């Protein structure tokens, strides 16, 4: 048990440190990267809890997708961090007070009196070939099927909302639709050679004209 405890403390300290760095860095990209570190060490903590599937999916979805979104937005927005942080010191005392109140509340609710080893004894370590994901699947798609379908609807709402809020047609850009390009068929109607009359009258005595001086009709 000793080595696992040591790992737990290492990852927990990394998570706390990274979380502290997120809110104190001046550079927003650094903050996002520290948040990524916090998530990765949280995933390690979940792996220590034998929540294998959730830990890896945390990295896959949160670090791999959501943080990429954050990075995209922060990199393109060019936030002027100095003006945003102007009032930081002024609000620091009340910030610390609220943080302390929240920490005490969290400790009282989630602390050892309610969730300690008397109320919830440590579970058996899982068998060596137990598949966490399969266990989850067995429960998700039988008992909790309805919440899964509701999750699908929530994702649908997210898609529709994102598109409605951000998609803007730019009518002046001309672009070629690759789908139409791909569907061309060989044949006589693909290319048309059109004979056109000359738009500009060519002056008769071109050879003796001065360079750069020509009649335009």
């Amino acid at each position, binding site marked *: 048990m000793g080595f696992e405890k040591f790992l737990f403390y290492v990852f927990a300290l990394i998570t706390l440190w990274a979380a502290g760095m997120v809110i104190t860095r001046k550079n927003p990209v650094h903050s996002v990267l520290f948040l990524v570190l916090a998530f990765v060490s949280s995933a390690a903590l979940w792996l220590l809890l034998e929540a294998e599937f959730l830990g890896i999916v945390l990295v*896959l979805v949160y670090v791999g997708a*959501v943080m990429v979104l954050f990075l995209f937005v922060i990199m393109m927005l060019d936030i002027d961090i100095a003006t945003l942080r102007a009032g930081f010191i002024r609000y620091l005392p009340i910030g610390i007070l609220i943080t302390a109140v929240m920490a005490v509340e969290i400790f009282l609710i989630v602390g050892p009196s309610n969730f300690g080893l008397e109320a919830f004894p440590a579970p058996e370590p899982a068998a060596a070939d137990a598949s966490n994901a399969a266990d989850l699947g067995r429960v998700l798609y039988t008992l909790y099927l309805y919440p899964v379908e509701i999750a699908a609807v929530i994702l649908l709402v997210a*898609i529709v909302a994102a598109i409605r809020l951000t998609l803007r047609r730019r009518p002046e850009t001309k672009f070629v639709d690759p789908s139409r390009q791909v569907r061309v068929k060989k044949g006589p109607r693909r290319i048309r050679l059109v004979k056109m009359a000359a738009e500009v009258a060519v002056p008769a005595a071109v050879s003796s004209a001065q360079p750069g001086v020509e009649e335009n009709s």
Partner: protein
Amino acid sequence: MIDNYLPILIFILVGILVGVGPLVIGYLLGPRRPDSEKDSPYECGFEAFETARLKFDVRYYLVAILFIVFDLEIAFLFPWALVLQELGIYAFWAMVVFLGILVVGFIYEWKKGALEWE
């Protein structure tokens, strides 16, 4: 079960070292002669005209959001794929409903042109 993850932890640390090692070797062996012309960012031979930050292009944001949604779909598909043979045809139809709802979203994206030119 988690005993198997110790090699992974060590491997990740070794992987980071494989990244640090060449950089250290490069610093030790390579010359270091900073020069204002050499260090200026590349812009086809000219000085940079504006700051390197681009105008915010909302298409990247949209691509990232759609990626999140589809990634979550994949995360839901993984446990289902594992227990499909056990649970049989009911699980199949459950997933058809799930995928159907998300395919509706996909068709909406397609029709609205969110998947176009980027």
